[in-house]
């Protein structure tokens, strides 16, 4: 049997890491726990992680004239059905998918040829253009939000999918990340493709894209997470049409309409919103880390 010796250094490391993990995980713990409990348990902070799961009466249901017998539910069932019934959560999720997938696809369509040109083609002003890409990395979104909004408003595009998608289609980060990855692709491979009769665009899609899958996966996670969770931008450009709400905007429904008692359904909604991301990350974890370390080839 292996024996472990006590080491102060290791212990300190682990204490720090455990504290860090707690800071990160506690909000998730609270979110999931709240989504499982009855309103009384949430207010009084009782019931542990899962709550007692005693039958509770749905107030709205009774007010609508139903018999009290028919309105008794377990808190967990109540919270999660409320999440879908009180607001069109499925619609929000669908919007989220439409927006994030469109953004990602267009970002790739733009970033791959740009990155290829910056990494592998020799042309006048290449380093200047690359410098411009780096500068763009430094500009915070919030700094240009107002001009962007005014531009979209003048074009009559607010309250549309276009408003949610267009500002994000050119990703300086995507161009930078893919350019760094393409630098590691051997020049011989590109020359071989040219000898085989491929045009430069064919090289991008038929040679570079398949070689860059790990890096693209890493970029996909950055991009999808950022835009799936984005509250700021949809809040600005989607002012009236509820059917365009993305999942984070949907969370507001519970806050606004039922200020007092809706924590359970609200946290149920939040749990539902983050689940797809966590599942996707777990599935792609290994390749994601491969992509970040930029070691796809060889």
């Amino acid at each position: 049997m292996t024996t472990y010796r006590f080491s102060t250094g290791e212990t300190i490391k682990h204490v720090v890491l455990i504290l860090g993990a707690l800071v990160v995980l506690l909000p998730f713990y609270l979110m999931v726990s709240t989504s499982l409990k009855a309103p009384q348990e949430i207010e009084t902070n009782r019931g542990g992680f899962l709550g007692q799961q005693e039958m509770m009466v749905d107030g709205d249901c009774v007010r609508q004239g139903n018999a009290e017998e028919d309105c008794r539910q377990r808190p967990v069932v109540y919270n999660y059905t409320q999440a879908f019934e009180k607001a069109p959560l499925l619609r929000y999720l669908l919007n989220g998918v439409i927006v994030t997938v469109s953004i990602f696809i267009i970002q790739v369509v733009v970033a791959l040829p740009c990155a290829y040109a910056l990494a592998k083609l020799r042309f006048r002003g290449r380093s200047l253009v690359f410098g411009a890409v780096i500068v763009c990395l430094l500009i915070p979104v919030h700094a240009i939000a107002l001009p962007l909004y005014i531009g979209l408003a003048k074009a009559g595009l607010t309250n549309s999918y276009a408003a949610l998608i267009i500002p994000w289609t050119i990703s300086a980060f995507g161009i930078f990340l893919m350019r760094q990855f393409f630098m590691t692709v051997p020049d011989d491979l590109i020359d071989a493709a040219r000898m085989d009769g491929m045009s430069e665009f064919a090289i991008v899609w038929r040679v570079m894209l398949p070689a860059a899958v790990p890096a693209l996966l890493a970029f996909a996670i950055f991009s999808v997470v950022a835009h799936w969770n984005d509250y700021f931008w949809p809040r600005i450009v989607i002012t009236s049409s509820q059917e365009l709400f993305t999942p984070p905007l949907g969370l507001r429904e519970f806050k606004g309409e039922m200020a007092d008692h809706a924590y359970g359904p609200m946290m149920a909604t939040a749990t539902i919103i983050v689940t797809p991301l966590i599942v996707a990350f777990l599935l792609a974890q290994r390749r994601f880390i491969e992509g970040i370390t930029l070691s796809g080839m060889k």
Partner: protein
Amino acid sequence: MARLHLKDIRKSFGETRVLTGVSLDIADGEFVSLVGPSGCGKSTLLRIIAGLETQDSGRFEIDEQRVDGVRAADRNLSMVFQSYALYPHLSVGENIAVPLNMRQLNALQRLPVIGPFLPGARGRRRAIHAQVARAAEMLDITHLLGRKPGQLSGGQRQRVAVGRALVREPAAFLLDEPLSNLDAKLRVHMRAEIAQLHRWLGATFIYVTHDQVEAMTMSDRIAVMLDGELLQVGAPSEVYERPADIRVAEFIGSPKINILPAATAADGSIACLGTETRMAVRGAEVRASQLGVRPEGLHLSREPADFTGEILHLENLGPELYVQLRLQGCDAPATLRADAALLPQLAVGQSVHLSFRRDRALAFDNDGKAVETRLLDRTPQTTPASGIKPEQGIAPDLGEERRAAHV
């Protein structure tokens, strides 16, 4: 099948002049090696031929047709790269099919998913499949067709790269150091295979290498390049035995040729390290200042002969022996190739007498250009003492293979 004609090709990268006016004619079906140390411009020349790089000036013709400005894909040349450059995401079969797909299918038929169902695509794809199968059979890689390049060994990848090059029957093959990533044993084997392939196909081959053994063994002609110019183009034996320039003499041949200081008297006779060589230059104005003697042209001798030297180091390669010497009157060490059977008689630090073969010695002038010489008399050379026969001193004509194994 093609004749290639290069005329005064020049190329600079910024301030660096890489090619300074290269002219070369390559006959149909010829195997020409471009050989030179790294950085001599041979790869750039090949890339200009391929169309991957554009020359600053000069013209390049394939079969009397000027192709400057024609893009690489339309020159009908194929290339094998040092790193093989196989598409990592495609199987071996798909890799070999790529050049055919790009030429025989149109853009729609190449589309993934729907492409194969378009009219005409089926028949063409079947034809391509048959061509791939034929190429694979020729190279004995049929069993590998389903694998990805990552699952292949270096030698197998090499074959696949050759397969991809030959499947579309190009006008000429360009090979850019294709063997330098292989281990020594496999290199010897693949050398023979490529030479055999050239005989089968009868196509024009241009082979770039820094390994003079590869160039010597495979080519019809060798083009020795240095500092962006062609120093000499000729058959391997000619380049080896009658190098036009001292740099060619030094580059071709392993171990390196011994260059000894020499002086030319007024009557044209050449003296080397204080010994009359009984050789003379042809022509009145010509002065030889250096004498090149290949390691197999130097012999050990029991009695005082042309030179004396001290043994610095002995290298036993099995069939033969390299003796490193310091010749009296010469700072640079000299190398001698001898029969390994002499090893027991030799020791480091020992002083030995040496003679050299006049008919194989090469004279060069101050600029390093070869100088024609004649022998002044035909008196027999000093007979070596018993035990060391001249033949033993002369390296037996070993196959290049065996030499290469030790390179």
